[in-house]
């Protein structure tokens, strides 16, 4: 078996992976990126609407800053997020976007003068200032108090990914394409690389690295109806889980995006609603204001998706050829706006639905969209259990999203986490801890184990079909672990998944084609996906409350008293059919923003006794600072975070009118 040595190994070539690789490479470490597909085809490219960063340039964003971004994100997470990390994130996001601007992303810019915009179904005229002309502009998104989603038409992720990939090429970082990591090599609690399968030739090889970073995106494909790319099968998180040591956080926190087109399940951006688009029911009635008078169509995604399903269940849906759906109406935005800022949406409608959104309504229904859960990391992106293992982006549970992510915070996270994790991997490699002593015998042993697994699958005679079992898993997840969850259904889902896990041991391949053999790929991925599905379903069953996107019809309240905790799933026994769940408490006494009402969604929740105590403490601290303390000092007094950041990212962000 060929062994390739490198300082840093990054698994996944999306925005997070490539940014982390660039960071490590710039610090002088040899870095190799592995990718299932060519780097520029990664799912980051599919992000449409925008990247949240509190630049505060355009009129709708004026007055925006890290504090508001922080509060929006924590509220969006339904207080599931790690607030220190959210602070690191909101502080670094403007730097991330400015770096990308310097690297070549053609962000849309503020145009001085009068503009017509659509707000609450009506046209308004606003006037942008001369001072902001030519700076990066932003659009409105759900769950935010300011227009904060910076965008490149509706191809934001595409433009970001291309720029990032080009920078990685410029830095001379090799991307080994069509390579799949099958297992992490680890010696006790030290990760030292991965066993990798070449998806062209089927060969196995080993990459030995001081630091290994998982950046493989989400696991949306455990669901039947998902906006995710077909490669989003969560293999990075799964191989971390299969070490039996690293843990995955909040796997039950799955986001459903309100506007996926029916039936293809392809996303149309939240920018449609951010720019003024409306949701209509079968009778053509705009129903969101009935449920959410404050934020209407622009409540957070979990809330809007739930309201949509609730409205359909109440009999107000549209009966279409592919089941029930609702309408997204962007006709009121006008042809010029759609063809400039929503052109990807127009193209998708044209090709997949045969309609023109300038004149027609778009049939939509919520679909699985994002995985808040992933490899649990500390604030610098390292697994607390497995040293040398890092994670960034959607595949990580760094935890800025808690139980619901805000639109535009995902691409922002990829870039910011990439910046921070790239640096922490470099620090790690430079430190004593980074020194690696590993015998090739151990590497060979891991390689042998993976080869045996593949041989076992290839020679299986149990008669089960990998594609069939995959479909059953996906159907189970979509039917029973969806937007509305219920104890009984979840219990059934867990049982069904256990049954599928047993059946998956009896797969027989019909094809023995040399090379990658797509059927073999489906078979080994299925086994790993089933584990992720089980973490999700079992985690959801155990969490007897409703928080963010995790909604239990039988426990409809958020329960801070018992459940202000992060689920940690691990899989220590390879033969088990259930994960081991542990819980990590979130300490209210350290929070800058103690739990409360989000400003949208349901108002009733079971408070934690610490909430009131902490609020008093905060009030006292702020009163002690007096009126003159600026926002930085007030924040510092409540929850200092800057020391957690790499030193070069600690400076304040300049905004229009600020002296630095």
């Amino acid at each position, binding site marked *: 078996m060929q062994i390739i040595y490198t300082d840093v190994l990054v698994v996944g070539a999306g925005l997070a992976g490539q940014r982390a690789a660039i960071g490590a490479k710039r610090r002088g470490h040899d870095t190799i990126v592995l990718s299932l*597909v*060519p*780097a*520029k*085809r*990664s799912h980051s*490219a599919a992000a449409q609407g925008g990247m949240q960063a509190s*630049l505060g340039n355009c009129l709708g964003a004026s007055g925006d800053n890290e504090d508001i971004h922080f509060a929006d994100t924590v509220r969006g997470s339904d207080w599931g997020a790690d607030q220190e990390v959210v602070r690191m994130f909101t502080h670094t996001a*403007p730097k*991330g976007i*400015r*770096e990308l*601007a*310097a*690297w*070549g992303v*053609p962000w*849309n*810019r*503020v*145009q001085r003068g009068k503009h017509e915009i659509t707000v609450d179904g009506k046209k308004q005229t606003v006037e942008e200032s001369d001072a902001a002309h*030519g*700076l*990066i502009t932003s659009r409105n998104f759900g769950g935010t108090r300011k227009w904060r989603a910076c965008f*490149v038409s509706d*191809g934001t992720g*595409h*433009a970001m990914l291309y*720029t990032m*990939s*080009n920078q990685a*090429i410029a830095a001379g970082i090799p991307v080994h394409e*069509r390579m799949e990591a099958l297992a992490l090599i680890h010696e006790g609690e030290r990760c030292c690389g991965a066993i990798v399968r070449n998806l062209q030739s*089927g060969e196995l090889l080993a990459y030995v690295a001081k630091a290994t970073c998982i950046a493989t995106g989400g696991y949306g494909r455990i669901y039947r109806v998902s906006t995710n*790319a*077909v490669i989003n099968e969560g293999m990075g998180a799964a191989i971390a889980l299969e070490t039996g040591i690293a843990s995955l956080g909040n796997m039950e926190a799955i986001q459903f995006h309100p506007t996926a087109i029916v039936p*293809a399940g*392809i996303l149309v951006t939240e920018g449609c609603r951010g720019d003024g688009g409306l949701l209509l029911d079968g009778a053509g009635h705009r129903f969101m204001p009935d449920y959410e008078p404050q934020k209407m169509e622009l409540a957070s995604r979990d809330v809007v998706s739930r309201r949509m399903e609730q409205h359909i269940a109440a009999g107000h849906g549209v009966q279409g050829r*592919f089941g029930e759906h609702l309408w997204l109406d962007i006709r009121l935005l006008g042809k010029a706006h759609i063809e400039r800022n929503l052109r990807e949406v127009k193209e*998708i409608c044209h*090709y*997949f*639905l*045969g*309609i023109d959104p300038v004149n*027609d309504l778009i049939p939509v229904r919520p679909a699985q969209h994002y995985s808040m859960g992933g490899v649990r990391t500390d604030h610098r992106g390292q697994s607390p259990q497995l040293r040398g293992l890092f994670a960034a982006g959607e595949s990580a549970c760094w935890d800025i999203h808690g139980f619901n992510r805000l639109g535009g915070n995902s691409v922002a996270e990829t870039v910011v986490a990439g910046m921070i994790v790239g640096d922490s991997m470099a620090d790690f490699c430079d430190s004593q801890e980074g020194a690696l002593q590993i015998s090739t015998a151990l590497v060979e042993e891991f390689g042998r184990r993976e080869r045996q697994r593949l041989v076992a699958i290839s020679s299986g005679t149990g008669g089960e079909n990998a*594609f*069939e079992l995959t479909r059953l898993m996906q159907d189970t997840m979509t039917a029973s672990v969806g937007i509305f969850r219920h104890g009984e259904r979840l219990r059934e889902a867990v049982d069904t998944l256990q049954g599928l896990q047993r059946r998956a041991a009896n797969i027989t*391949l019909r*094809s023995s*084609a*040399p*090379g*990658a053999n*797509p*059927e073999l790929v489906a078979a080994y991925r299925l086994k790993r996906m089933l584990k992720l599905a089980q973490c999700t379903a079992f985690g959801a069953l155990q969490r007897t409350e409703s928080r963010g996107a995790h909604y239990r019809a039988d426990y409809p309240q958020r329960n801070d008293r018992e459940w202000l905790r992060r689920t940690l799933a691990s899989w220590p026994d390879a033969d088990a059919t259930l994960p081991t769940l542990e819980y990590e408490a979130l300490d209210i006494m350290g929070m800058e923003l103690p739990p409360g009402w989000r400003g949208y969604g349901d108002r009733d929740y079971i408070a934690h006794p610490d909430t009131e105590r902490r609020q008093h403490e905060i009030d006292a601290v702020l009163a002690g600072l007096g009126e003159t303390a600026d926002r930085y000092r007030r924040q510092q007094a409540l929850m200092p975070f800057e020391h957690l950041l790499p030193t070069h990212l600690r*400076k304040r*962000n*300049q905004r229009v009118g600020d002296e*630095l």
Partner: protein
Amino acid sequence: MNQIAVKEAPRSLKIRILRHNPHDPGSSPHLQTFELEEAESMTLFIALNEIRQTMDPSLQFDFVCRAGICGSCGMIINGRPGLACRTLTRNLPECITLAPLPAFELIGDLSVNTGKWMRGMSEHLETWVHQRDQDKADIDRLEERMEPDLAEKIYELERCIECGCCIAACGTARMREDFVGAVGLNQITRFRLDPRDERSDADFYSLVGDESGVFGCMTLLGCEDYCPKDLPLAAQIAFLRRRMAATGS
């Protein structure tokens, strides 16, 4: 939306696929026909997956986003290059012939190595913003201003998804393996337009001022006519040709 009042019997599609597995010494290129019943709103993405899952699990093809965004699924559909994921079977005749994109290294069946080609092109043409002082940008300060129209113009050219259809549609690229194609020339115009890129026309001339670059283009216009993103490739290449001709002569 059109409501179909009378439900017609679904068509039976005959999908002929040019198959070859270079990793199998016993394999040689051949056409294999699969028959399947057409479903409503069926795309080639759905059809090919159905074939793989129910008829031939060894069939190789590439899809990623399946939404026409990532550029993975370029293939030859009834003779013409296009994105399979967003091609609805109802817009095609009953007999559909699929072949891998030519001009790229074959991985197997419909899967070709566009990634390797594109990375090579990027390295060769240095498709990134060149700044003499890389770390000049102070990310704590206000970003450099840019005219809004210019940003939109750059994005217009940035929309390329490197799917390879322009290369497959190009008679020149088919004859000359070193031709950078519309995808490469378009990227040069994109970076030339970008004020953040400090390269001069002479720098660009050294990259595309020869037969493998802009002067190799014979204006066959396959790129313009088969670009899935409708990029203004002919106009961009013409523009670049004028600039490079002025620079060179």
